[in-house]
């Protein structure tokens, strides 16, 4: 090797081994600063994103307007569309090309998603896997592109790369200018139950009809932002999307007997709705309960027909970041107006609507639209008035997915063998929970436009947190698990997790990582760290600041700190940047008393201590045996020790105490007598001194919350901020001085910090039953609605034993272990 190259390679090696410039590291001892500020990790504030977490004075974002004509070809289960797209370049940069998201291409056999799917079964293959493979072979997926032109019809060059398409412009689009692109396309609709996904059709073999859910269905302009440029990350199936806001006019042509639900407001009801349906809609605007626009009977009647003509439903939606729609002749349709104070920036009336087949009944007509309205009531209180004129819940094959003004929600009631469609409490709560979650997404991220393809937790976590608040306000004892700290501990103790701040496609366990853990973190931040008043103000500030804008995680972190006035870097570091968990152990409690040095007090106390010890029984047994003591038999042997024990106070002791008191001065202080006064007060108060020893076994620093029970039965709750760990994050000691004697101490008595091991939280130690032990005491959930319909066999039980009944005399009496 030539020497110059050798030197060069040595230099490269040396650079690689050197610590990164500017990196701060603890290079002596193992101290870990859990409270190190995060500024070194966060992006430097700019003119577009302020250090306060607010949009900066030079904030900008692009705008994209769409004018779309689309036809649903029911027989072929195919979409054909044409879009006129106006792109407004509000950025300070000239753009030579535009990137489009072409998410339907995910279903091509040569897509990154298809090619990176792995098969790990050793000796079997499922029918589901085969069904998917067969469908994808029979029904080609992905976009069939037609003409791609400018506004004058001149062809534009383009390149498709997996789920992205680059369209090259004739000349760079200058800042402040706009351009038009026209695209024709078609694709075969996926059967959701075969290939999965967030849209598609569902076929009902019983009546031969389909429900069509159309989402991510047209070439959508990718986002272009101040912090990432083009957001051109291919779609692999997990990270959903972010887009630009814009105005949409969409004409949807479907069979005449279909009902269409879509983002936006219907512009031509006279063309597609009957007079009666329009009258019902008018009545629904001010109704107290949902009003059927299309009844179950009317929907059922259409199931046996096939219209030969078509209807074009025209929708208009302003300032939305996407557009989705649904179509079927099976849809029952109900609606109810929701009145709100739009604060001059949002509608004062929102039409809450639900669309569902008979298979969703009776649950859907009872609870879907009610849940939509409940969501708006609760979410608006914590963020901003619902920003759009419609809020819709549509049942179909997708378990749950959100788009502006429209959501797809999967839960139904399965018929029992006898055709009964009663539902359990759990089924009802399942539907309510899914509707709340998906409608909630219209706030986050459809309005607060975070990027789910990068950060799933930013909308799923925040939305799940608000869902928890909404579910807890529903009533009837509705349970809400995601957000309750006790349910996240098993996940947080796992050794294989990744931090919340992980890209969407690299997450293990989406549900816990991106939904439950951030929701729990925010709930703890509200309930335990900041308190509701501070948190709610700060969170609403975040929502208001970033409504119709594009926040990053750092904008959220900065806003919550800046608006609450509390340094939360330690909280973000622990909950969002690490995989630590919470386990604070109360290892030892040492009770102490003040050594007064006063011999009158101390000797008496020592004597009392000795007398409190169990008596050595040897002497008593001797006495019982009739043995007498020599000194009793000959008193002349007794001297002064017979009248004075080791605790007798002498003048020597008293003189020493006097000297001690005289020494209680601080000659260096302007008030040299202060030690004497402190001493005398402590003696007078005669308090109990407790030293509590804690260890932080989980690594995540959190407030130390103590429930203290005193010997007299009274109670105290002591809440010490997390900063108590700042100089000693692994272990600490805390002094408690109390007038009363402590009988019991419990760390985190309300289970509000997600402490993973509550057995080490108690002084004195206390066994906490495991889940399995608790199970043995519990009763199971019942279908109360069904059980209540069962008739009593006899009003008065017959005392005569039934024929064939045997004696129970030898049976075990049912008992429950306490």
């Amino acid at each position, binding site marked *: 090797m030539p020497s110059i190259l050798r030197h060069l390679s040595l230099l490269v090696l040396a650079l690689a081994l050197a610590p990164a410039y500017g990196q701060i590291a603890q290079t002596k001892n193992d101290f870990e600063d859990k409270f190190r500020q995060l500024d070194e990790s966060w992006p430097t504030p700019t003119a577009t994103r302020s250090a306060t977490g607010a949009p900066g004075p030079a904030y900008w974002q692009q705008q994209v307007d769409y004018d779309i004509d689309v036809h649903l070809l029911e027989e072929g289960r195919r979409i054909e569309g044409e879009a006129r797209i106006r792109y407004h370049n509000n950025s300070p940069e000239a753009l030579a090309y535009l990137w489009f998201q072409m998410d339907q291409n995910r279903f091509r056999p040569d897509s990154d998603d298809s090619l990176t*799917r792995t*098969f*790990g*079964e050793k*000796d*079997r*293959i*499922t*029918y*589901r*896997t*085969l*069904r998917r493979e067969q469908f994808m072979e029979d029904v080609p997926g992905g976009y069939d592109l037609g003409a791609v032109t400018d506004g004058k019809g001149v062809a534009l060059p383009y390149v498709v790369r997996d789920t992205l398409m680059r369209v090259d412009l004739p000349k760079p689009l200058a800042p402040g200018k706009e351009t038009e692109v026209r695209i024709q396309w078609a694709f075969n609709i996926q059967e*959701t139950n075969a290939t*999965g996904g*967030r849209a598609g059709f569902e076929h009902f073999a019983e009546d031969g009809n389909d429900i069509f859910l159309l989402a991510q269905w047209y070439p959508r302009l990718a986002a272009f932002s101040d912090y990432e440029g083009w957001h051109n990350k291919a779609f692999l199936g*997990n990270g*959903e999307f972010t887009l630009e806001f814009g105005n949409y006019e969409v004409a949807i042509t479907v069979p005449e007997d279909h009902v269409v639900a879509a983002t936006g407001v219907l512009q031509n009801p006279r063309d597609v709705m009957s007079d009666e349906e329009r009258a019902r809609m008018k009545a629904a605007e001010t109704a107290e309960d949902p009003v059927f626009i299309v009844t179950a009977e009317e929907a059922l009647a259409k199931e046996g027909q096939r219209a030969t003509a078509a209807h074009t439903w025209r929708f208009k939606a302003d300032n939305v970041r996407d557009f989705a729609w649904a179509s079927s002749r099976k849809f029952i349709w109900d609606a109810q107006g929701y009145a709100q104070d739009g604060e001059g920036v949002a509608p004062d009336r929102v039409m809450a609507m639900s669309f569902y087949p008979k298979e969703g009944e009776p649950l859907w007509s009872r609870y879907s639209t009610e849940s939509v309205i409940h969501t708006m009531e609760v979410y608006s209180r914590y963020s901003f008035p619902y920003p759009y004129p419609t809020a819709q819940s549509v049942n179909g*094959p*997708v*378990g*749950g*997915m959100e788009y502006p003004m429209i959501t797809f929600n*999967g839960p139904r*009631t*399965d*018929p029992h063998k006898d055709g009964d469609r009663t*539902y*359990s*409490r*759990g*089924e009802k*709560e*399942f539907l309510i*929970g*899914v509707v709340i*979650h*998906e409608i909630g997404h219209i706030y986050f991220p459809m309005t607060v436009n975070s990027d789910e393809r990068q950060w799933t937790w930013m909308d799923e976590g925040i939305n799940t947190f608000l869902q928890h608040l909404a579910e807890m306000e529903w009533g009837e004892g509705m*349970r*809400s698990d995601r957000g309750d700290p006790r349910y996240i501990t*098993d*996940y947080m*103790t*796992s*050794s*294989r997790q990744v931090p919340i701040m992980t890209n969407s496609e690299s997450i*293990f*366990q989406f*549900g*816990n990582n991106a939904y439950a853990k951030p929701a729990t973190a925010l709930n703890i931040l509200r309930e335990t760290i900041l308190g509701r008043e501070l948190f709610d103000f700060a969170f609403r500030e975040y929502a208001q600041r970033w409504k119709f804008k594009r926040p990053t995680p750092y904008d959220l972190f900065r806003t919550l700190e800046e608006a609450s006035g509390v340094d939360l870097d330690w909280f973000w570091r622990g909950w969002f940047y690490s995989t630590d968990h919470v386990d604070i152990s109360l290892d030892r409690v040492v009770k102490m008393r003040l050594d007064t040095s006063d011999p009158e007090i101390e000797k008496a106390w020592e004597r009392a201590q000795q007398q409190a010890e169990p008596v050595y029984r040897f002497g008593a047994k001797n006495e019982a045996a009739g043995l007498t003591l020599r000194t009793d038999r000959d008193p002349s042997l007794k001297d002064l020790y017979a009248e004075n024990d080791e605790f007798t106070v002498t003048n020597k002791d008293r003189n020493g105490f006097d000297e001690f008191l005289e020494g209680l001065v601080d000659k260096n202080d302007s008030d040299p007598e202060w030690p004497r006064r402190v001493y005398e007060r402590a003696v007078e108060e005669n308090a109990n001194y407790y030293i509590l020893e804690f260890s932080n076994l989980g690594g995540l620093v959190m407030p130390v919350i103590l429930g203290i029970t005193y010997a007299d039965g009274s109670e105290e709750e002591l809440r010490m901020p997390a900063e108590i760990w700042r100089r000693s994050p692994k272990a600490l000691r805390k002094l408690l001085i109390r007038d009363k004697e402590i009988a019991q101490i419990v760390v985190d008595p309300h289970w509000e910090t997600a402490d993973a091991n509550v057995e080490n939280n108690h002084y004195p130690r206390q066994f906490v039953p*495991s*889940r*399995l*032990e608790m*199970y043995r005491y519990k009763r*199971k*959930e*019942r*279908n109360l609605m*069904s059980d209540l319909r069962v008739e009593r066999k006899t009003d008065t039980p017959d005392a005569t034993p039934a024929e064939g009944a045997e004696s129970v005399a030898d049976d075990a009496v049912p008992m429950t272990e306490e």
Partner: protein
Amino acid sequence: MRGEALLLLVLLACAPLGAHQQKAALTTVRYNPRSDEVEIAHRFYLHDAEHAAQEVTGAETILRSDTARQWAFARYVHETFRLSTAEGQPMDKVLVGVEVDGSLLWIYETLPGNQGEAIAQVRHEALLSLWPSQENWVNFYDSDGVRTLILRREAPEQALTSAPLRPLPQ
């Protein structure tokens, strides 16, 4: 018989993929000195389990309110979660119970005595055939802390590679 692998078709099919299904199970394994048994608690999101239950139990299913179907699902999990020794011997677990708690479905099993130290191999196939993204996490708790195995369709069986499971300090 020729050396080609034989693919067995398994009748587990067609649960729809929802954008917000959790597709995750979490199992904890820990020794309880009070009962002198290794407690195994499987936690499934009911959201997932209800979609899958009809397929795995082969009957119409309202899992939340149907105790019999819950037990059928529990037996399915009991059979698809397997522990074995270093010699490859399957360990005899006892299916203790099943319950719905809010949005969660819990299934409980035990290993009599403190057999934790004998666990060498873990297989957890529940729901793996239904969804490509299903992940079954198993947390083993012992005096050293927690060790997590993540079992997926491509790797439904893994070894506990470090020290054998030791009892928790009493």
